[in-house]
C-alpha cells in the first residue's frame, strides 16, 4: 500500500516534528528534561529542536525529576505549556508525587480555576535486555490514578497527531512512547511503526480507540507494541482460517470502552495483550470493562497475554520468555477454543 508520495517517519521524528510545529506557532511551549537538548533525547524525540529553538526553550535539566516536573506544573499554571520528559517511565518512583499529586490534581483542587496544560512524555517498554529498572511499561500504574490523560501511540501517524493534541490540551497528558517503536535502530525497531505522516499539523483524538484490522472471530485488544504483536498474530490466525479483529486502544485514559465493547460484541471473543505486568492493570481493566457491561456476548472466557508478575529479568532467554509475542496470542486463541461453553 506504499504510495510514492508517502513520507514515512519514525515515531521519534514524528514526535519531534509535532513539537517543532507547535513551538513555531505557540511561544509558550517549551521542552525540558534530561538530555533532550544537545543529545536530542536518548530516544531521538527532541532531535533538532535545540538548533531551531535554542537553549532557553529546549532545556536540559539536572537529574532532579521531582524539581523539574514540579516546575513544569508551576509553569503550566502560570501560562506556559511545558513538554517535559521523564527519560524512562521506570524513574517515576523518584518523582511521582509531582506527577500524580500535583500535575494530575491541581485542576481539581483549584475547582477548574487553573489549567495545567502540560505533557509528560516518557519512554516505556523494551525487550532489549535493559533489566528490571529500565524497561517497564507501567501503563496500569499511570492509568489507575485520576487526573491525567494517558496516551500510547503504536505508529508515527498517531504519534504526531497525539503529540499535537496533547500539547493543545489544557489538561495534563502523559505520553507514553515505546522504545521498540521509536525507529532507533540501536534498539531494534518494529517496522510497522514507521508509517506515512502528513507534513502539516493535525491532531489524533485523545480517548478514541481504533480498529486497526477488522475481523469476525476474536478481538485482540492492545496498545503500543502490543498492537504489532496482535497484527502479527492476526496474520498467523488468518492462515488457520480465523479472522481476528485488532483494536489499538491509542489512549488508556480516557479509555474508549465503547469501541472495545462493540468489537467484542461482534466477535464474541477477547484477548488482551499487555506488555505491562499482568495483575491489577490494563489487561484486567479491559476484561472487566467488557464483562461488567454484558457477559452474554462472550462465547468464551476472555484471555490475557501479559507480562507475568515478576521483575523484568535481564537474560535474554528469560526476558523473551516473559514478553508477549504473536505465538502466545495464537496459543491463547487455541486455549480459548477449548474453553468455549458447550
Amino acid at each position, binding site marked *: 500500500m506504499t504510495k510514492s508520495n508517502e513520507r514515512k517517519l519514525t515515531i521519534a521524528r514524528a514526535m519531534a516534528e509535532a513539537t517543532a510545529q507547535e513551538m513555531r506557532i505557540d511561544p509558550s511551549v517549551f521542552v525540558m528534561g534530561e538530555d533532550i537538548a544537545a543529545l536530542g533525547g536518548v530516544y531521538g524525540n527532541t532531535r533538532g529542536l535545540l538548533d531551531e529553538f535554542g537553549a532557553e526553550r529546549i532545556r536540559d535539566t*539536572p537529574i532532579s525529576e521531582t524539581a523539574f516536573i514540579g*516546575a513544569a506544573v508551576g509553569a503550566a499554571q502560570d501560562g506556559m505549556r511545558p513538554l517535559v520528559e521523564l527519560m524512562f517511565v521506570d524513574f517515576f518512583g523518584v518523582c511521582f508525587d509531582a506527577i500524580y499529586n500535583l500535575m494530575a490534581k491541581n485542576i*481539581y483542587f483549584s475547582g477548574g480555576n487553573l489549567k495545567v496544560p502540560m505533557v509528560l512524555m516518557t519512554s516505556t517498554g523494551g525487550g532489549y535486555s535493559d533489566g528490571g529498572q529500565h524497561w517497564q511499561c507501567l501503563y496500569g500504574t499511570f492509568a489507575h490514578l485520576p*487526573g491525567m490523560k494517558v496516551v500510547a501511540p503504536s505508529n508515527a501517524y498517531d504519534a504526531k497527531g497525539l503529540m499535537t493534541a496533547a500539547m493543545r490540551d489544557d489538561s495534563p497528558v502523559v505520553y507514553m512512547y515505546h522504545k521498540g517503536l521509536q525507529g532507533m535502530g540501536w534498539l531494534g525497531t518494529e517496522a510497522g511503526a514507521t508509517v506515512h505522516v502528513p507534513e502539516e499539523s493535525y491532531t489524533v483524538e485523545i480517548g478514541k480507540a481504533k480498529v486497526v484490522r477488522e475481523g469476525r472471530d476474536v478481538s485482540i485488544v492492545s496498545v503500543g507494541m502490543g498492537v504489532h504483536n496482535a497484527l502479527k498474530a492476526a496474520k498467523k490466525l488468518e492462515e488457520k482460517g480465523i479472522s481476528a479483529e485488532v483494536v489499538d486502544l491509542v489512549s488508556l485514559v480516557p479509555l474508549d470502552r465503547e469501541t472495545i465493547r462493540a468489537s467484542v460484541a461482534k466477535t464474541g471473543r477477547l484477548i488482551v495483550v499487555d506488555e505491562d505486568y499482568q495483575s491489577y492493570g490494563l489487561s484486567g481493566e479491559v476484561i472487566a470493562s467488557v464483562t461488567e457491561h454484558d457477559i452474554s456476548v462472550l462465547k468464551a472466557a476472555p484471555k490475557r497475554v501479559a507480562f507475568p508478575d515478576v521483575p523484568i529479568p535481564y537474560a535474554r532467554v528469560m526476558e523473551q520468555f516473559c514478553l508477549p509475542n504473536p505465538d502466545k496470542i495464537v496459543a491463547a486463541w487455541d486455549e480459548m477454543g477449548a474453553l468455549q461453553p458447550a
Partner: protein
Amino acid sequence: MAPTRDEQHWMYRNMVTSRRFEETIAKIYFEGKSPAFNMANGPIPGEMHLSDGQEPVAVGVCAHLTPEDVVTATHRPHHRAIAKGVDLDKMAAEIFGKATGLSGGRGGHMHLFDADVNFACSGIIAQGMGPAVGAALSRKMQGKPGVAVAFVGEGAVNQGGWHEAMNLAAVWNLPFVCVIEDNAWGISVAKSAATAVPTNDVRAAAYGIPGERVEGNDPFAIYEAAGRAIARARAGEGPSLIEVETYRLAGHFMGDAEGYRPEGEKDGLFEKDPIPAMRARLLKDGAASEEELAAIETESEARVEKAIQFARNSVDPAPEDALTRVFAA
C-alpha cells in the same frame, strides 16, 4: 530597610486577621465533634493545621509581594493565604466545604488555590517547591515581572524535593525565594532530631546562594531579610533562602495533645506571642495609636466575621459535582 508606617499597619492587620480567623475556625471546628471528638463531623471536617504564632513570617514576607507574585504554601496555609491576599470569603467557604469556596469544596483546608493572587498549596511536604520554581522560570522565560516564594516548614528541608528545587532555582538563576518557617517541630519530631545542622541558612552554601537566619519571630527583622531576598530576585540576581525562627502556639493539628513537648516549653511560647508583642511595639515606637490599633482590630474581626458568615450561609456543593472539573473545561 524597615517597613513604612503603612506597611507596619498592614502587617499588624494581617496578623490579627489571621489569628482571629483561626480562632474562629478553631471554635467552629469543635461544633458537632463533641462529646466524642470525631474529625469527620461538624461544619469543618478533616485535619486542621493552625498557624497561630507563625503570622510574622507570612506578613514579613508578603509585605513585599503584589498579587502578580507567586506563593506556594503547605498543609499549614492560612496565615500565608491571608497575607497573600487570598479572598477570605471564598477561603472560609472552602474550609467549610461549600459550593462558593475557592474550588467549590474540592480542595479544602490543605488545598487552597486562588489563581487571582497566584496562591497554591500542596499538603505533601516540600512539594510546593517545584511549582514555585516553575512559576519563577515561567516569569523569566516570558519576561514578565514577578517573583515566586515557597513557604515550607523546617521539617521539609530534609525532603529530597526541597534540595532538587533549590538546586534548580540556583542553576537557572531564577527569581525565587524559599522561606523556611522554623517552628522547631515537624509534628512530634524536634528539629534537632531530624536536621543534621542547627540552622538551615547554612544549607544555602550548597547552592551558592545567600542564606539568612532570622531569630526571634520578629516581624520587622523578617521584613528586612525578605526585602533583601525579594529585591535580589526581582533584580534578576537569583534565588535566596531565609530561615525564620518562629513558634507553633497550637498543636500540629487540632486534637494534638502535644505530649511529646518538653515540660513547660509551651508556656514559654505563649509569653512570646508575636501579636501582643507587635502591638506593644507599634505603640512604643509611635507607629500607631491605640485608636488606630483598635480600629485595625475591629476591622479585622469584622472581616473574619463576614467571611465566616458567608461560608456558613453558602450552600453545599451538589454531591455529583464531585465528578466535574477533573480536567480543564
